[in-house]
């Protein structure tokens, strides 16, 4: 056990070292003038921009407001997709009739680039938050529904038979066997969906928003403020990771039997 902890610590340190080296190299590129400052701000400048925005905000918005706006839209759209997608997907997995009626639409929606219908959504719902949340919902929904449907279908037949033999009725089989059996695949779908939703929210903010990290990046690019652009990008990366990691943590905690089939 001690050996493993040692390895873990070493791995973490190595990771931090790699990031540190990357940042250092980045700083050197700027300091040595290898790339014009106008094109690539240095880490020091990005840091300064962070401090500046924390104190003065950016064009009337606080940093917190922008982060909250982006995350909020993403999470709301995602949760809506979960609320509708999981039950519908499960139902499609159980009922051939339901699958037959709905699957075409779900599979049609899935590969569509969200930006292709964003304009339509803005036309219908305006440039406020609702159209963006709607966009995220439509981005995440097909993946979640498909994963739920596949999840319920791949539940080990023998487990269902065992439950029937023990006297469980359909409702009990769903609750105690189908749903838990489908969870690993459902969560895999959730993880994919939240990543897709997050990149969509940024794209949507680039097009039509008045706050949010994506908006901040776009707005800064209009003013050639590469320090704020980079700050925005770094924050987006960090929060994207936070969202993913949170979902993974929930997954690992809830689905303790992953890998044991």
């Amino acid at each position, binding site marked *: 056990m001690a050996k493993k902890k040692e390895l873990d610590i070493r791995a973490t340190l190595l990771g931090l070292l790699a990031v540190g080296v990357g940042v250092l190299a980045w700083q050197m590129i700027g300091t040595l003038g290898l790339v014009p400052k106008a094109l690539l701000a240095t880490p020091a400048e990005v840091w300064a921009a962070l401090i500046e925005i924390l104190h003065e905000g950016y064009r009337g918005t606080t940093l917190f407001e922008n982060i909250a706006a982006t995350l909020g839209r993403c999470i709301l759209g995602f949760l809506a997709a979960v609320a509708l997608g999981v039950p519908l997907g499960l139902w499609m997995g159980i009922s051939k009739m339901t699958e037959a009626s709905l699957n075409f639409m779900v599979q049609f929606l899935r590969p569509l680039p969200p930006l292709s219908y964003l304009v339509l959504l803005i036309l219908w719902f305006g440039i406020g938050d609702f159209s963006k949340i709607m966009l995220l919902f439509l981005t995440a929904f097909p993946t979640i529904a498909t994963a739920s449907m596949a999840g319920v279908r791949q539940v*080990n037949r*023998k*487990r269902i*038979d*065992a*439950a*029937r*033999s*023990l*006297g*469980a*009725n359909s409702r*009990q089989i769903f609750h*105690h*066997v189908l749903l*838990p*059996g489908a*969870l690993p695949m459902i969560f895999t779908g959730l993880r994919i969906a939240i990543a897709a939703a997050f990149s969509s929210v940024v794209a949507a903010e680039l097009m039509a928003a008045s706050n949010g990290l994506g908006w901040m990046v776009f707005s800064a690019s209009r003013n050639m403020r590469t320090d704020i652009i980079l700050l925005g990008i770094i924050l987006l990366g960090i929060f994207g990771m936070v969202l993913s990691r949170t979902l993974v943590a929930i997954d690992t905690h809830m*689905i*303790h*039997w992953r890998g*044991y*089939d």
Partner: protein
Amino acid sequence: MTIVSFEDLTVQFGSGADAVLALDHVSLSFNRGDFICIVGPSGCGKTTLLQTLAGFLPPTSGQVLFEGTKVDGPGPERGVVFQQPALFPWMTVAANAGFGPKVLGVDEAECDRRVERWLRLVGLWNFRNRYPYELSGGMQQRLAIVRALCNEPKLLLMDEPFGALDALTREKMQEELHSVWKRNGMTILFITHSVEEAVYLGTDVVVMSPRPGKIAQRIACPFAARDGERDIRSIKSNLEFVKMREEVLSLIWGMPHDN
């Protein structure tokens, strides 16, 4: 007192030229308290027979009667144990064991009582809060059997339940099953590839032949019902035992089977 009756049972898979006759007009009946072991080469229809009695497979013609009524689907009075334990990995050992009584609405205190009784009996009580994937193969199979037994079924159907276990564990399980059967007066239908296992456990050994599935012979078997000496080694090396085992094996070898 007859508990199960297969009456002129035929099960056909597919149709036309591709049809496979898994069971061909099979008739068999047995009584409460019997331990019926079914043996035979691959493809003789043993699993199909069990599946019709369990209620997973409908007959093509003929019928299967349980306590005089036609079998119409799976039910808790006919407990089933497969070769793969098919436990629920998201539930603890105790929750798995108590699943049957729980879904049948048995009173919680009674559920707990049964779970404790059976888990203690097979030595799993100390693992009641673990998960199935933390158990060894033998322990998992014990849990699968306990899960079926907590429903106090009148009939236990077992399809090669010890097939995936190592030789030592397998024999221990044979001994345990035998004593559970003896003590509770259960009726068991047991499918196995091992003739030795069948002769050791069964009150009757039913030998089936393949293509199409039929019953070749039914042999009354004295070893299970005997009281007294229960040392498994002396029983299995007993001359009478060996003779019977060899007779059944010769019977099976003489049949057409896949290579």
